[in-house]
C-alpha cells in the first residue's frame, strides 16, 4: 500500500506544473498554488523513499527506475531551496513537467516499489547517491539556464510583460545557475572518485566515458567563467548542452554498457 504514495506525489507535481503554466498566462495566485503542489508532492515522495529505505533490507535505489525515483526527489528538493521565493517560482515551469515525466517513468519501471533492494555495499551506495545528487544539481542548473535564455529573449525583444511575471534578474540567474552547476560538479566528482575505488581497469565502459566528458565540460565552463571569458547566453547554452548529455547520451550509454 505504501507504494501508492507515488500517486499523491505525482498528482501534486502535476498540479504544480499546471499552476506554473497558469501563472505564465497571468492567473493570479497560480504561482502560490504551484509551490504548494511542489511542497506536498515532495513530502509524499519523501515518505515513499523513507518507506522504501525502511522496508528494503539493502539499497532500494540500485535499479535504474529506483535511481530515477531518488533523482526526481533530489531535483525537486534542490528546486525547493529557491522555488519558495516568488521570483524563482517560474523555474518550476521548466522543472516540474520533467519531474512528472521522470517519476511516471520510475513508477512504470517499478522504481517506486517497497520490496526492491540489493546489497551493493556502502561504497557503491555512496557512489550512486553522490552521482544522482550531482546530476540533480546539473539538472536544476540547466533549468535555470533555460529560464535565463527565455527571459533574455523577452528582454531583447523589449517585452514589457517581463515586469508582470516577477522573474529573477538575469545576472542573478546566470550566477546562480553557475554556482549550482559547480556544486553538482563537485558532487559528481566525489561520486566518480568513490566509484573509481570500486573499479578495476577492465570495468571502464562508455557510460563512464560520457560521465568524464560531462565532468570535463562543466569544469571547463567553470574555469572559463572564473577567468571572465564566459557569461550569460553562452554560459547558459553550455549548461543546456551539458544537461542534454546527461539526459540523453548518459542513459543510452548506460544501457548499452
Amino acid at each position: 500500500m505504501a507504494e501508492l504514495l507515488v500517486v499523491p506525489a505525482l498528482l501534486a507535481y502535476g498540479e504544480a506544473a499546471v499552476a506554473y503554466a497558469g501563472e505564465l498566462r497571468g492567473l493570479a495566485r497560480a504561482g502560490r498554488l504551484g509551490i504548494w503542489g511542489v511542497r506536498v508532492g515532495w513530502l509524499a515522495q519523501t515518505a515513499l523513499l523513507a518507506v522504501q529505505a525502511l522496508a528494503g533490507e539493502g539499497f532500494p535505489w540500485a535499479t535504474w527506475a529506483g535511481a530515477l525515483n531518488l533523482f526526481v526527489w533530489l531535483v525537486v528538493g534542490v528546486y525547493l531551496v529557491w522555488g519558495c521565493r516568488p521570483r524563482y517560482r517560474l523555474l518550476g515551469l521548466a522543472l516540474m513537467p520533467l519531474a512528472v515525466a521522470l517519476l511516471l517513468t520510475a513508477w512504470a519501471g517499478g522504481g517506486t516499489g517497497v520490496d526492491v533492494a540489493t546489497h551493493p555495499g556502502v561504497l557503491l551506495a555512496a557512489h550512486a547517491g553522490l552521482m544522482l545528487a550531482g546530476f540533480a544539481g546539473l539538472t536544476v542548473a540547466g533549468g535555470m539556464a533555460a529560464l535565463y535564455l527565455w527571459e533574455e529573449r523577452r528582454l531583447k525583444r523589449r517585452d514589457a510583460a517581463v515586469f508582470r511575471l516577477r522573474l529573477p534578474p538575469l545576472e542573478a540567474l546566470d550566477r546562480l545557475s553557475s554556482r549550482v552547476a559547480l556544486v553538482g560538479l563537485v558532487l559528481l566528482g566525489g561520486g566518480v572518485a568513490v566509484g573509481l575505488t570500486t573499479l578495476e581497469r577492465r570495468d571502464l565502459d562508455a557510460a563512464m566515458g560520457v560521465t568524464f566528458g560531462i565532468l570535463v565540460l562543466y569544469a571547463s565552463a567553470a574555469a572559463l567563467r572564473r577567468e571572465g571569458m564566459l557569461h550569460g547566453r553562452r554560459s547558459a547554452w553550455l549548461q543546456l548542452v551539458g544537461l542534454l548529455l546527461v539526459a540523453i547520451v548518459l542513459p543510452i550509454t548506460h544501457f548499452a554498457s
Partner: protein
Amino acid sequence: MNIHLVGVSHHQARIELRERVAVDLDGSATLARRLADGCEAVVLSTCNRTELYLAADTEQPLEERAVQTLLDLAGAEDGSMAPLLYRLADESAALHLFRVAAGLDSLVPGEGEILGQVRDAYEAGAPGPLLDRLFRMALHAGRRARVETAIGESPASVPAAAAALAQQVFEALEGRRVLLVGAGRMSELTARNLRSRGARVTAVANRTSGHGRSLAAQLESRAVGLDDIGDELRECDIVVSSTSAPGFVLDADVLGPGLRSRHGRPLLFVDLAVPRDVDPRLAGVDGCFVYDIDDLEAVVQASLVGRRAEAARAERIVAVEAERFREWQASLAVVPAIASLRARAEAIRAAELAKAEGRLERLPESERRIIEAMTAQIVNKLLHLPTVRMKEAAVTTEGVVYADVVRHLFGLEEEQQP
C-alpha cells in the same frame, strides 16, 4: 469618541491652491501641537494633499476648528478654498486614511513615498489613544497592501522604468557603472534615479564640454568627449543617452566589434532621445539590451495597468482593516460599562471575603490563597461570557442598548450618582 478629517487634495484643488496650505514636517508638528488643545491632532501634508485629523472623546466643534485652520493657512479671502475642502468623520475618515496609506488615493496608485509620509506625520503629530490606534492601523493596512499585492512593484515613470529595467538585468545596482551620453534633463533625472539605487555615474559624454562638465561635477563624475564613448563602453554596465543629434551617436558598425571583448557581460542601453541615439542593431550583440523611449513608455503603461488591477485587491485589504478599526472603535462604547461591571463584581468579592475574615484567619496561609484565587476565578468565569457578548454587540448598533441594560441590571448607574 469622534474623529474629524478636513483636507484638500489633488482630486479637487490645483497646485496653486494646494501649495498655499502645504507645510513641511516641522510645520505640521507645530500645527498639530497648536490644534491639540483638548483634543488629539495629526497633520498630514504632502505634495498631493494637506489633511488635518482631529479626535476627541467629548463633543467639540473640531470640524470648524480644522476648517478655520486650513482657511487661515491658505489666506484665501476670495473664498476659493472653502468649497474645495472635504470633510469626513469617523468611519469615512478612517477608511480615507487607510486608502491614503495604501497609496490608493495617490495620483499613481501604490506610489511608494506616501506610507513614509503618513508615518512621519503620525510621529510628528499629537495623537492620543484614538488617533494613535487609527494611524498605527493605517500604517499596517498600507504595509499589507504593498506586501500582499504587487501595487507598488512596477515602475510608474520613465526614469523609474529605466531603473527597474536595470534591476531586472543586474539585480542590485550598487557599484554599477553608468555612462551618460548627452546632458539633457531626462537623462539627468534617470541618472539621479539610478544613483539613488546605488549606481555610480562614471562619465558624462557630451558634445559641448561646458554643460557636460557642470553635470559631471553635480553627479561626482568626469566629463569626456563623444569620441571617448568606445573606450568607456568596455567598462560600464548602463548607458543612458539623450542628445539632440540627428543620427545615431552609438552606431553598431563602429561600436559592435569593441563590445565583443565584454564576453557577453550585460550592457543596457537606455535611449531617451528623439531621434534615437542608439543604433537598435546593437541589441544583436551578445549581452546588449537596447530600450528606447517608446519601450520605456510601454513599460510604464503596462505597469500602470498592472497597478490598477492590483489596486482592486488592495482596496479589499483596506476595507478589511477599516472594518477592524470600526469594530475596535465601536467596542469603546461598551468599555466603560464592562469596566464598571468588573469593578462592581470585584468590590462584592472583596467585601464578602472581608466579612468572612474572622472565620478564614484560622486557616493556613496556603489555603487562604486558594480561596482568594478561587473566588477571583468564579468572578472571572461568570463575567467572561457577558463581556464577550457585549463586545460582540458593540460591533452592531445594539452595543449601547446592551451597555444600558447591564448598567440597569447591576445598578451601575446608581453607583455613578454622587
